[in-house]
């Protein structure tokens, strides 16, 4: 179980893996996530699932190598085993025939958005897929998403490929009637911008939130967000919420709480690589 059967680097520091886990493959639906934990000292961290193959019993993940734990996961080769992986967690996306659905995947979340696009197509929708990244080198799954969708858009923050920024969405909404938007991105500002855009057009918008998580099962509450004035746990009540009701300022500030510690971790690892003894332990 949890053996990696396929692995690819999709872009610098963005990895794709497919691993065997019958239970997760059988039960996961678009929008759900798994929690991964590596080694005795690793963190628990969530990854939204990018697809499954229930017949082969395999699960696909696309993830950024941003911290120590995701780097450990990214370092595994085909044939190696992920230490701990729990899932599926969170609630599935509401998939049904809405008419025209626009699915936006920012950066690494182009992976899970391909899972959504497939499901919304199967449910009989016209699906517009759009992906975004900081620059053209970080765009992933272009060919796949183009093939899966009815219409396909590319955007980059710096304009190095496709549309520059997210304004192209406004043009789409002005041109045709979109019944629902699904937006996935680890960058809160992207989700916020899209939600503000769609609000002006009165389009129901579902956003997949990525706050800090710990257990991922509803036990700790670190992932609490405010939606429509009510506190919700992203892991057990979400991870998807109505983007027009999310308190974005709160989410952004809660995501920053450990930025100092993240730097400490990186410094510590650098020291270790250089062979210094640990000088930063708490006492």
């Amino acid at each position, binding site marked *: 179980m949890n053996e990696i059967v396929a692995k690819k680097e999709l872009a610098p520091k963005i990895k794709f893996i497919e691993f065997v886990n019958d*239970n*997760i493959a059988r*039960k996961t639906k678009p929008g759900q996530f798994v929690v991964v*934990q590596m080694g005795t*000292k*690793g*963190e*628990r961290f969530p990854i939204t699932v990018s697809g499954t193959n229930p017949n082969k019993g395999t699960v696909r993940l696309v993830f950024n190598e941003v*911290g*120590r*734990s995701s780097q450990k996961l990214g370092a595994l080769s085909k044939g190696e085993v992920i*230490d*701990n*992986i*729990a*899932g*599926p*967690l969170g609630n599935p996306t509401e998939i049904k025939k809405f008419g025209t659905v626009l699915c936006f995947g920012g950066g690494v979340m182009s992976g899970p958005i391909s899972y959504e696009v497939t499901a919304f197509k199967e449910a009989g929708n016209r699906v517009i897929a759009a992906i975004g990244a900081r620059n053209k080198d970080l765009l992933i799954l272009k060919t796949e998403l183009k093939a899966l969708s009815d219409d396909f858009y590319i955007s980059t923050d710096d304009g190095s490929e496709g549309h520059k920024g997210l304004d192209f969405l406004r043009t789409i909404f002005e041109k045709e009637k979109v019944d629902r938007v699904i937006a996935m991105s680890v960058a809160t500002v992207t989700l916020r911008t899209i939600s503000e855009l769609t609000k002006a057009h009165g389009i129901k918008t579902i956003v997949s939130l990525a706050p800090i998580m*710990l*257990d991922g*099962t*509803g*036990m*700790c*509450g*670190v992932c*609490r*967000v*405010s939606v429509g004035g009510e*506190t919700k746990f992203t892991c*057990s009540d979400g991870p998807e919420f109505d983007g027009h009701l999310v308190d974005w*300022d*709160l989410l952004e*500030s*809660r995501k*920053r*709480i*450990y930025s100092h*510690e993240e730097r*400490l*971790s990186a410094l*510590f690892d650098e020291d270790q690589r250089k062979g210094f003894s*640990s000088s*930063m*332990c*708490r*006492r």
Partner: protein
Amino acid sequence: MAEKLKLNRVPMDKQAPEIRRRNPNEVASGYTYEQSTEEAKRCIQCKKPGCVPNCPVNIDIPGFIEAMAEGDLPRAAKILYATNSLPAICGRVCPQETQCEQTCALGKKGDPVAIGRLERFMADWARENQEESGIGKVSLPKATGKSVAVIGSGPAGLTCAADLAKAGHKVVMYEALHLPGGVTYYGIPEFRLPKNIVQAEVDYLVNVLGVELQLNQVIGRGATVDELLSNGYDALFLGIGAGAPMFLNIPGENLNMVYSANEFLVRLNLMKAYLFPEYDTPVKIGKKVAVVGAGNVAMDAARWAVRLGAEEVYIVYRRTEAEMPARMEERENAKEEGVIFKLLTLPTAIIPDDQSSVKAMQCVEMELGEPDDSGRRRPIVKPGSDFILDVDMVIPALGTRPNPIIAKTTPDLETTRYGTVVADEITGKTKKDKVWAGGDIVTGAATVISAMGAARRAANDMDAWLRN
């Protein structure tokens, strides 16, 4: 009774407060062999012992203590393990003062026998001397051919799994996290219950009793209860505890530096954040920390805060010390370590700084009125008593409620409006065919030993039913 009664118990060595304030190691060091023998000899071997019926799992307390007094440790270990599969845990965290020790005959004139300390010594000895104690060689009965799924590997799950395995059934225990033990792992701190002890108790179930442990299994999200039953289990036990934290529902509770006690403890106990950055999971600590609540969990959080280097740590509680649910021993330990009890105080808002973190906590003073439903005097707000408590971290420790995942995905499982599962008080049988439940999932947050007692009774009923 030729000998004169020894009225004072043998004291147990503890790390001095100024030392233990700065390390995560176990506070009490446990009896030595000599101390344990001396204490065991204090037991007067009552004909009708008061201790046994007051133990939720009815350990033959005079039996194992008599063997200890005679120096026959293997016999003592055998008696202890016959009725308790987790003695090293119970000896450390049971509230003996309100159970076995409360009804000890010696308690009428002096100190009751230190049953918990003796249990702890015996369990530790038996584990460290497996050959001599014989606990590693249990002869299991012939397999019955029946199989049972136990959901949760906390105190209830472990007890139920052990009892059913000893009865000859095939037991598979499912745990949602990546480490087993439930609250004994993620909830109770290292300084009260070292994690290698929890691991050893679980290893005993797996290696000696043949229980199969499956980690990372969130039943309800992955396989459901109904799927497990239709996949061939003859019976199923729900010991999933009460894992979802409650908050105060006051303004400012979603600020950074407001941690649920569960989050704070999971980071420290399960993920070992006190060893960051060697371990990957971080935790923050304030200079002045308010823990809101006064149960054992609140004491655990406050005492961790002390160990992480907070300058001032408060227990903020709306009643007085007399009404506190925490064990006396934990309250004393906390006070010795410098935790300040801020009593008759109710938080009304958490005030933000310009970084969306905690600047202070607004509170009101309370006074006690007439007794309420719980028999405790009801706290009432003193009008005009608002004040600001200068803190930069707040930890609500207000108790937990059941995680709703299993209830939501098991349509015919009857639950109460508190989310607990309805089960027979004696047998633990739920209204759903083939399903039993016990521990916090039935009672709401309670103690390790009460969960074990409920699991023991459920295991008995399940065993009888499986044999029919």
